[in-house]
């Protein structure tokens, strides 16, 4: 199965909506924790673990700390799922 950037971001958006309990939440590559006040160091890890389950991959704890925005998270996911 080929994964496009768009498809990964769409699936990631569902993860965000689930974690932040907000069905109207919209994300873009530029979205950062500043725009989502509930996105803190704890929910960041909850997001990562939820994304791991959805995409059936494993991310290293050390590398997820560097992610500055949604775009970087999508990039990392694309690398891991071989998109």
């Amino acid at each position, binding site marked *: 199965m080929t994964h496009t950037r768009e498809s990964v971001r769409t699936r990631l958006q569902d993860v965000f909506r689930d974690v932040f309990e907000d069905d109207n939440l919209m994300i873009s590559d530029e979205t950062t924790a500043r725009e989502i*006040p*509930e996105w803190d160091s704890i929910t960041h*890890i*909850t997001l*990562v673990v939820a994304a791991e389950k959805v995409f059936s991959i494993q991310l290293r*704890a050390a590398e*997820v700390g*560097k992610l500055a925005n949604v775009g970087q998270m999508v990039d990392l996911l694309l690398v891991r799922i071989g998109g």
Partner: protein
Amino acid sequence: MGGVISGVYLIINAILVLVCRTLPPYRSILLAIAGLTWWSTLGDLSSLTPGLGLLVLGYVGIYVVRACPTLLGAVVCLVLSWFAWLRLYPPFSLIPHPISMIDVGSMFLLFRLLHLLVESAAGVSYPGVRPQHILGYLLALPAFSSGPIQRFDDFHQQIQRPTPPGGWAPALLRVGDGYLKLVVVSALFLEWSQTTPASPLGYATSLGAYTLYLYANFSGVTDIAIGFGRMVGLNFPENFDRPLEATNFLDFWNRWHISASQWCRDYIFNPLLKSLVSYTPTAAYHPWLGVLSLLITFFLMGLWHGPGPAFVLYGILLGIGAAIVKTWQLLLRRHLGKTLTRSLNQSGFYAAGCRGLTFTWMSLCLACFWMDKTIFQDLGEVSKARDWAMGLVMLWAASSVILELWSKLDPLRASVHARMESLQAHVVGLQIGLACRAAIVILFMMLQVRPLPPQVY
């Protein structure tokens, strides 16, 4: 003194800059040689051998875990044990050791080694990496003793690029600012913190002045490292971002000693919380697992500063501060909802009080570094305990007001700073700027207005 205030440190850095500018392809090995040379001036071979042992052990370990990642745990344990022996942590302190081991830089060397060990075991590749790059990274003189803690991928990318021409002016001014903060400002605050009467006001002054001393001292050392780093074409990460304007303890640690905070986030907090969350399917527990992870991470960060009850207490206070803030945030969100919580956080009065409380709590944590054991006897007496409590309340009230006013002056300070930068961009302005900084520092040292403060490691 052997710290960055010493002439030896300045001379070796000056030679390093000149040679690196002349022979840019050899910067890695030159950085390592400079680091080792400065290290060797701190003591004799026997006192330096344990520190060198840590370096050799970690360096060999990097190649071992790269070849066999399953040995990561064993190698990390070995490196941590050696570090614990070098820094005299019990029970490792019972193992015989040379008299007065030199452990300068070992705290930061440990973080760099653990970072490389974990990344190497994970198979992260750095195209074109050579042994001298790793040694240069581990021993880079400007940041060797007190950071900032750069990541190897940043270092490796920068060391492979040619040194950008020019850029001397901001780098020299940064070094000048660093010495001004370290020699003058921190000395004044240190003396102020030590010459206060035993009264509520005196306790409040001591607590606050010591925090400001440490801020001036540590950020000064960082400025010097960053300035010299830029001269050799390295951009060390910033370590401070207006920490006194933080409105909670977690925000404070996002702005204070940033490189160490981020290291602890990536190599302690994230792995710990990720493991806990992975094994706990009930999402409602995740925030509380986060609180527990913060408590443990901050406790370990406190303990990293040194052995003994003072550092244990420091770690406990850091952990409690972080856990309380996160718990408060969770409770607010649960009981007030997202919208009301946002409104409350944006309220000026609430933010000012939180800013003062953050400064007061951090000052209380740092008191572990300077208070002696008599404090516990003092607190046993009702009148002394009351005085201390009043001192803390006074510090909270005063710092809330002062820091609120200080934050209001942000635009003015920014415009003055921009104006100064534009003036110092010209050769004459630069020379005047440097001469002023040098004159104040040298006069201060020559006249011995205040004794030179110790450098914070």
